[in-house]
């Protein structure tokens, strides 16, 4: 390192005893700092700080000897079936008088399935509108986390609320499944299930122009 000697002006000529020159005890730390930062950079780049995000999924218990009576019956009026298919398309339909209504085609995103889900959910469970209110209260610390969770889950499990049945066909991607599960969270739909697609629905998909 270049160092300019600070001579203090020179001219200490007081005369007297001759002393041995005192050597400075200072050590140049610069290389050590260099090394330190080099290692920091290395560790910063190799470190994986963020733990992966996950979604928790509960699947129904699969019993071989389950009879029809054991299975939960879903009321026609509250069920909505979502079929996931190729090219990130979604086909959804409702049941009426034992017959499926005309399937609708939509896509992922705000204007697509989310709008439909929000609308249908609100129509059956008007209390969902208060979830954002509770969320704000929770953020402003007016509610404790437990209270907030209890309120939200009470609303979500309303017995006449929307029940979404998710079925994915063989041409859909895993991403589609995750996206639709994500929409369930966004739209505050408490009850949904992932079910295998039936031949009838595959036929329906074939007939529906995408």
């Amino acid at each position, binding site marked *: *390192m*270049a*160092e*300019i*000697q*600070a*001579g*203090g*002006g020179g001219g200490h000529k007081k005369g007297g005893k001759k002393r041995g020159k005192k050597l400075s005890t*200072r050590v*140049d*730390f*610069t290389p*050590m*700092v260099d090394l*330190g*930062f080099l*290692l*920091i950079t290395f*560790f*910063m780049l*190799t*470190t*994986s*700080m*963020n*733990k*992966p*995000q*996950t*979604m*928790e*999924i*509960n*699947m*129904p*218990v*699969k019993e071989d000897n389950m009879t029809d009576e054991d299975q939960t019956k879903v009321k026609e009026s509250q069920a909505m079936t979502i079929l*996931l298919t190729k090219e990130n398309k979604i086909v959804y339909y409702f049941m009426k008088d034992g017959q499926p209504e005309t399937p609708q085609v939509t896509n992922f995103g705000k204007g697509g399935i989310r709008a439909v889900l929000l609308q249908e959910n609100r129509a059956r469970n008007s209390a969902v509108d208060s979830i954002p209110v509770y969320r704000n209260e929770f953020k402003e610390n007016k509610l404790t986390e437990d209270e907030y969770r209890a309120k939200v889950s009470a609303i979500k499990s309303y017995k006449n609320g929307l029940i979404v049945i998710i079925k*994915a*066909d*063989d*041409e*859909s*991607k*895993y*991403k*589609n*499944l*995750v*996206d639709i*599960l*994500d929409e369930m*969270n*966004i739209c505050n739909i408490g009850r949904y299930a*992932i079910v*295998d697609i039936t031949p009838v629905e595959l036929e329906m998909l074939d007939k529906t122009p995408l």
Partner: protein
Amino acid sequence: MGKVKLPRKSTSVDMTAMTDIAFLLLTFFMLATKFKPDEPVLVTTPSSISEIKLPETDILQLTIDKDGRVFFSMDNQEKRVELLDKVAKKYNMTFTPAQKQEFSLLSAFGVPVKNLPQYLDADAEQRKTFPQPGIPCDSLNNELADWVLQARFTNKNLRVAIKGDGDANYPIVKRVIATLQEKKVNRFNLITSLETAE
């Protein structure tokens, strides 16, 4: 009046404080670092708004890549050796202590049980090119089910996490989920990355 001569100051800065900070940060990063386990395949997870974090221990991770291959990994080295013993017993195979040692250090693997000894004997370089067709999980030959079942016997608190590639086809995911359900794993996690654009 003569000019006042300013004494020339030394330009050398005291580095001690900077060194302190540098080493403080260095210590922090060294302690906080958990090296990324090298994964056999690169998987791009789909994004979600979910903010639940994956627990750090007791994780059984099933990786599904975009070609539909399934890879298996489990944390805890000792438990892994135990698991290998159990699976070996099931398939009437024996592993040498060296192979067991290798298995305990393995991150994730996707080879059928019958190819596992060869895979374990291979060194790190060979392993990169070793063909990994994924763990068979179809209905005829469902080795994945055995792995999952034995893993759950080895570690009771195990949580199953599926790390799937966004482009993986749904049928393979469905098969993995069905396998889990068969083995009474009805609660599992899907690993996603954080939603960025909205």
